[in-house]
């Protein structure tokens, strides 16, 4: 069975996506259990897969027995195994949480919600595991289409934000496909391992460079890298809390994974220095925009823009320390953002508001949620014992290693800015007087 693990992870989700509506027809509550079972099984597979990969090296799986240049190949190497565990693990936690929240927010749409969730996870896990550029595009569109539908289930404005996400996301995927076309024209193959063998010979030709630029543009649109982040805040704010907490931690990370893969294929060309600057601008701009928000979910969404900047910066600095920092930050940010968005969902369901200025008395109302938020906020800011500290330290070491002192300053400055916008939440919820006059609104969730 171990040899089949690369295939089994996306296949579990695909199978469950079909099983959820069938189980839902029997009993509505079964839908959640089936989805949860899918996440547990896939999480188990990815853990086993990662442990095998760490012991014995990458697992190559040839679909239908066709050898790589002709057939599609699934590769589970340390990088994809690591991301696979993050994706399935986050999905598992979110699905455990989602039962109550889905019941409250969309009582008549539980079955489509879980089915779409499973489809999106099929796409995300497939994107990470595939070794074929066109297959990656197919999985990218599977996850994106399910994601658009998931985001459209939300409040009244959700379809409009989902539409904006759809147009930009589709153009991102079109850019990616155009880039793959250039790569295919110059190398004559779609297998990543094959391309990375051929690319040193054609590195300086125009099609290879154009292909790289287009793929990075497409991946940048999908991962909401700073100037291309316009779709993200609206989409995250207006979607239901379960959908946001599923898409926010892992959706953009997987797009970052495309960028990593392509840069590995190209062996980190020096052109990517430009990307480091874009990422640095994104870190600062995202943090400043987050300070300006009053809606908790919107603030977290802008903070996602800033954090994608960290990851992109770590990747594009192209030295081992910064790369470790980026990988660690993918893990840390997935966990922190999942915690914060899940807590935001709980807050909005219990307090009836997401307005930061109305969060007085949060610790009294929801002590455990506040404790979790506090730990996640410490990690976001980067206070020593928490995970966020270590990824930022690695990023700073990486920037020092490549002697780009400006980026060291950017990371330190953004840490201060992170502190500003998260401290506002803590300040209002802990230290502002909490009386009946300014107490939480009795209004139930709209």
């Amino acid at each position, binding site marked *: 069975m171990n040899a089949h693990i690369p295939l089994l992870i996306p296949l579990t989700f695909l199978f469950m996506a079909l099983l959820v509506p069938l189980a839902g027809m029997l009993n509505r509550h079964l839908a959640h259990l089936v989805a949860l079972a899918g996440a547990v099984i896939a999480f188990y597979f990815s853990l086993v897969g990662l442990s095998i990969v760490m012991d014995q090296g990458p697992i190559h799986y040839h679909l239908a027995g066709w050898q790589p240049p002709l057939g599609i190949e699934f590769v589970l190497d340390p990088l994809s195994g690591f991301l696979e565990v993050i994706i399935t693990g986050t999905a598992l936690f979110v699905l455990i949480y989602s039962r109550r929240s889905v019941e409250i927010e969309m009582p008549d749409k539980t079955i489509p919600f879980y089915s779409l969730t499973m489809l999106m996870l099929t796409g995300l896990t497939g994107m990470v595991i595939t070794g074929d550029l066109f297959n990656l595009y197919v999985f990218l569109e599977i996850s994106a289409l399910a994601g658009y539908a998931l985001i459209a289930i939300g409040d009244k*404005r959700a*379809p*409009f934000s*989902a539409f904006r996400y759809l147009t930009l996301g*589709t153009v991102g995927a079109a850019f990616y496909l155009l880039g793959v*076309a250039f790569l295919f024209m110059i190398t004559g193959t779609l297998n990543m391992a094959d391309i990375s063998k051929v690319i040193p010979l054609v590195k300086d030709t125009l099609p290879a460079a154009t292909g790289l630029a287009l793929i990075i543009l497409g991946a940048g649109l999908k991962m909401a890298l700073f100037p291309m982040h316009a779709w993200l805040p609206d989409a995250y704010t207006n979607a239901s809390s379960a959908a946001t907490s599923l898409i926010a931690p892992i959706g953009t990370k997987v797009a970052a994974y495309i960028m990593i893969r392509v840069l590995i294929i190209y062996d980190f060309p020096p052109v990517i220095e430009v990307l480091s600057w874009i990422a640095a601008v994104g870190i600062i701009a995202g943090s400043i925009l987050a300070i300006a928000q009053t809606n908790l979910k919107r603030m977290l969404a802008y903070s996602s823009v800033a954090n994608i900047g960290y990851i992109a910066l770590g990747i594009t600095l192209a030295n081992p320390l910064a790369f470790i920092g980026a990988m660690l930050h993918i893990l840390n940010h997935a966990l922190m953002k999942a915690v914060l968005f899940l807590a935001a969902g709980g807050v909005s369901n219990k307090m009836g508001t997401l307005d930061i200025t109305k969060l007085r008395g949060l610790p009294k109302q929801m002590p455990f949620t506040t404790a979790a938020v506090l730990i996640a906020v410490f990690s976001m800011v980067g206070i020593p014992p928490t995970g966020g500290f270590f990824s930022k330290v690695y990023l700073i070491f990486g920037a020092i290693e490549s002697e780009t002192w400006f980026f060291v300053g950017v990371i330190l400055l953004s840490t201060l800015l992170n502190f500003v916008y998260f401290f506002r939440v803590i300040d209002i919820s802990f230290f502002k007087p909490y009386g009946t006059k300014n107490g939480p609104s009795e209004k139930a969730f709209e």
Partner: protein
Amino acid sequence: MLEIIQGYYAYFFLILLFIIGLYGMMIKRNLMKKVIGMSIIQSTVILFWIVSAFKEGATVTIYDSAVGVGNPDLYINPLPHTLMLTAIVVAVVTLGVSLALIIAIYRNFGTLEEPLLMERTK
């Protein structure tokens, strides 16, 4: 110059098409027109793959006794065509989802004009 145009006219046409698509998507205010622009971009990419697979004097990839199997240059590479079948399916599904979203938007706000929508979603 004339040779470049003669050799690459399909690509110039595709560049034009891509720009028209981008224009429709970014400048037009009506959501329906944005969807049309998006579709044009997707079609451009599909056509780009097909054009890139074209070879002067080659035939379709079906065994022909008159052509034989001695010279692979006499057959077109079939891979881009098969890949684009998948891409066409993806494009159709995207179109379907976007139209469904447009229906939902119209039901919620009664308009598809972006400036009005921006006002009403405030």
